[in-house]
């Protein structure tokens, strides 16, 4: 008995001083459970990293990434002087800003209104219908837009001509696409995004709302002075996280709606679509990689900056 106790006491410091390799042996099963994921991210996320070098060379297929002649920052220089980098950055950021700001406001608006619905049946059915666009591939979304807007038999043109108006050909008019893309985006995600706010509205202490009613607050005052202030923390956190991704574009949406239509590029080309074309169509890996690296670095800084702010406001929600 005494022996066993002393043995137990002795093992305590040993646990604390366990070396790396002893830990590996002791936790080998847990490590093995993580191994597939570790291998996966190594193969598909870490292995491409050395390839960033292609942004600093004049890529030659036969010589490979590391055998091609080094050109320093020339690839970046070309993008900068041609104004392309500025155009892409501007488009990406402006679209994202519109998506984030209008998207969040609409989601809050929808969440508050859904919260007011009393018919459970109506609530359930309408919410089910609202999520539907989020489930659908971007390929089909692009096709839906085409069916609505195309010149020959699109739904909009059919309505216009039946009312005696001229046909409308947006596919050759770059100016209107920001509006169309923003509407399509909002159409696709508002139902889904409103769920987060809806959960936050549901989480508000019903006693506060009851108390306000007893004090004579009407419906508008209840929303203005109780619900919206209660949603503020959620909104700020979501906005900050969204800001972290402000230079990352929604490739699927843009590529499937715009496709390869150079007429529309000035107002619709974002970083992702440009990089994609440079890689897949032009095989211009050096330029594509230069833009990609630029985006990765800015994106990284944005996430770090936004996380820093989140940590200041609400340490529980910070990512790390």
């Amino acid at each position: 008995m005494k022996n066993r106790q002393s043995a137990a006491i002795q093992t305590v410091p040993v646990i604390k001083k366990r070396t790396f390799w002893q830990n590996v042996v002791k936790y080998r099963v847990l490590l093995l459970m993580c191994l597939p994921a570790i291998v996966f991210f190594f193969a598909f996320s870490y292995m491409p990293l050395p390839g960033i070098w292609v942004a600093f060379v004049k890529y030659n297929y036969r010589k490979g990434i590391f055998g091609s002649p080094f050109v320093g920052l020339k690839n970046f220089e070309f993008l900068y002087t041609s104004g392309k980098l500025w155009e892409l950055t501007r488009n990406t950021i402006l679209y994202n800003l519109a998506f984030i700001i209008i998207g969040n406001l609409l989601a809050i608006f929808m969440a508050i209104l859904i919260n007011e619905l009393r018919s459970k049946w109506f609530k359930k059915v309408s919410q089910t219908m609202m999520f539907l666009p989020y489930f659908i591939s971007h390929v089909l979304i692009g096709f839906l837009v085409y069916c609505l807007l195309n010149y020959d038999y699109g739904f909009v043109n059919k309505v216009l001509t039946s009312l005696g108006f001229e046909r409308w050909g947006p596919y050759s008019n770059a100016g209107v696409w920001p509006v169309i893309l923003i509407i399509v985006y909002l159409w696709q995600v508002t139902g889904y995004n409103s769920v987060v706010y809806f959960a936050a509205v549901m989480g508000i202490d019903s006693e506060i709302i009851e108390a306000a009613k007893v004090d004579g607050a009407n419906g508008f005052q209840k929303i203005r002075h109780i619900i919206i202030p209660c949603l503020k923390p959620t909104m700020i956190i979501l906005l900050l996280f969204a800001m972290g991704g402000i230079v990352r574009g929604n490739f699927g949406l843009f590529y499937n709606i715009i496709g390869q239509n150079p007429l529309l590029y000035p107002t619709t080309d974002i970083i992702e679509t440009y990089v994609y074309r440079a890689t897949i169509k032009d095989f211009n890996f050096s330029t594509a990689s230069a833009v990609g690296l630029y985006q990765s670095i800015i994106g990284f800084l944005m996430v770090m900056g936004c996380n820093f702010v989140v940590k200041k406001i609400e340490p529980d929600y910070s990512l790390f």
Partner: protein
Amino acid sequence: MSNTSVKKKGTKVKLDSSDKIIRGLGYFVAGFYALVCVIPFLLILGTSFSSEAVVRKSGVSLIPKEFTTYAYKMIFNGGTVWGSYVVTIIMTVCGTALGLSIIAMTGYALQRKDFPFRNAISFYIYFTSLFSAGLAPYYLLMTNTYHLKDSYLAVFLPLLMTPWLIILMKNFVKDIPHEITESGKIDGAGDMKIFVSLVLPMLKPALATIGLFLAIGYWNEWYQSSLFLSAKVKYKPLQYNLYEVINTAQMLKNSVASMYITMQDMPTETLKMATAVVSTGPIIFVYPFVQRYFISGITVGAVKG
């Protein structure tokens, strides 16, 4: 008496009217938006059963005009869509099963308080969502180093997991009391045994949610296919098959038995519509039954990334 009661009555009436306005607005806006979400799909469905001539003349419509199933017959008789179905179903089933088991194991191990490597491995995984090499180096690696051009593996493997799904799983595991693991240890069970027989049964909602995200990812996949699958691959995944049918005339021709038909006779537009319906139909059909898991995924994983 009368004074207070009037006042009370007054506030009550006021309260009712503003609530009524908001509620009415709620029903109108929610109902309108819900319809707007569904109508475009119905437009495609309706038009896919119309005859090509009518579509060209008077455009898309909710109700089929000159009802015909010609477009569907053309797709299903010797077209590529059957093969695409097989490819997509196999990928979705295998990818969801494999991805889900890996994500569940990793999520559990990384949530174990006593696991000394949890922070290091969590950061290793999370870092990949902070900084990426970009498309061009990834493309060169996949094609020149891994030689996955024109291989289904190039589509199948990258979709197995994302950092976000692993974090989501970690959040689900967090809610399982640590005592469960402890009690398993006291009974002398190994880590794997504890995970499979004690933890996994409690993770059913998590498995449903994350499995749904994975399955949707595989079903809707077109991006990796567009990068890595060339014309050499006859049967593309369903959504990429749809992409090609919509965007390239040649593929449209291949998607039907092409021997006995000339381009002029092709019902191109209704064929696109029918392919869209066939490619999307199953997921819309399943969707109402599984959407509640989707919601749990948003609320568990939304803010805490």
